[in-house]
């Protein structure tokens, strides 16, 4: 257990010191959300309707942006060889890296999301459901993303391929997240969607590290 938190702390330290970790993801999220009114035009009613979906799409893309370095840096400098040989199972290493990724990407999005919701004129009733959906859904983005990042970790330019591999897998999370926001905005109960989002994240918890670790072992050959 100690080694797990050591791994999390090390990845957090690296993300914070090398910059480009959390701050960059949030900046991207903000810009993507701000671009929507420019594209759609100054129509507050329309913006309010599409706000939950737009926030979720911006969150997906912001999450994607930081995925490619999740394993690639460690594979390139040889650290992954030593991590794979360590007593800490590779699956646990992957989970620790996902947690660090979520803490530097998903968590800051939660904090920035209310501000962006105002920009997009999201109805007041939807705020709680929207934040809850992001809180429950974004951990699954980091974990599903880890599979794509692991598959492309041995490639020089895997970034775009990661996006192509991972974005389709994000669809269920996106649909349920946007539905939760929309349901609350129209005065309906959002809890079924939130529970399903939680279920996706819980299912990812054991599955994604298994798959990502298998992909990493292939990348190290």
């Amino acid at each position, binding site marked *: 257990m100690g080694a797990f938190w050591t791994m999390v702390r*090390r990845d957090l330290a690296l993300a914070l010191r*090398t910059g480009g970790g959390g701050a960059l993801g949030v900046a991207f999220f903000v810009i993507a959300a701000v671009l929507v009114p420019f594209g759609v035009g100054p129509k507050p009613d329309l913006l309010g309707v599409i706000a939950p979906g737009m926030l979720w799409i911006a969150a997906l893309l912001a999450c994607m942006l930081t995925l490619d370095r999740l394993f690639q840096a460690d594979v390139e400098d*040889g650290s992954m060889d*030593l991590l794979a040989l360590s007593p800490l199972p590779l699956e646990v290493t992957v989970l620790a890296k996902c947690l660090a990724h979520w803490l530097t990407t998903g968590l800051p999005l939660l904090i920035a999301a209310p501000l962006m919701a105002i920009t997009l004129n999201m109805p007041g009733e939807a705020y709680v459901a929207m934040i809850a959906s992001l809180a429950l859904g974004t951990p699954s983005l980091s974990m599903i993303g880890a599979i794509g990042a692991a598959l492309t970790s041995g490639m020089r330019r895997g970034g775009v391929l990661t996006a192509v591999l991972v974005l389709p897998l994000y669809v269920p999370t996106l649909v349920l997240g946007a539905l939760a926001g929309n349901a609350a905005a129209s005065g309906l109960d959002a809890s079924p969607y939130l529970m399903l989002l939680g279920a996706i994240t819980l299912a990812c918890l054991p599955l994604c590290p298994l798959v990502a670790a298998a992909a990493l072992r292939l990348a190290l050959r």
Partner: protein
Amino acid sequence: MNLNIENLRCVRAGRTVFAELGVGVDAGEALILAGPNGAGKSTLLRILAGLLRADEGDARFGAVSLKEDRAEFQSHLLYTGHLDAVKPALTVSETLTFWAQIYGAPRDNVPIAVAALGLEKLADHHVRTLSAGQRRRLGLSRLALIDRPLWLLDEPTVSLDAESSARVAALARQRCESGGIVVAATHIDLAIPSAKTLDPAAFVAKPKEGIMNADDLVLSGDAW
């Protein structure tokens, strides 16, 4: 414990790197991998580390089989590759503390590891500010940090000065003297008295007897 490599075969990209490679190394002995570039030295080391799968054969450390119980086999070995596996953003002592915790080594080993390759003055420096040779030394100081009986060293002395190379050789010697095994691909003399030398490229499958190629058939044509 002794290391037994049995009938290893490795094919990469359609080319047989080596085949029927077998050698036994007793506790306290060293195995030096020699041979030209591309002879399969790194490949053999990565197979022994369990990072690469052999197409055939097995290696045993004591009674533990690499093929059957990879995790247990790996828990006895320490591998250092071409790459230093260090992060520019961490300091020297942070790097070693991290690896000590990941490998379950006591934290008290960190100062010992720092001293083993003469990094005392650099302990609080960021790896970013170190030279290539200093990074190499930091990577190799894991040998003094983590206590494992089987060492797999891939060109450990590349970009090291004479003094540091001598320190690495001394560490390897100590490992052998304390009953460990060192398998190293290196061109310097580690001065280990009980060292065997092996060229992986010398182990290639012999062509099967009784099968002749087309040219032989033509040449032997005037027999009838």
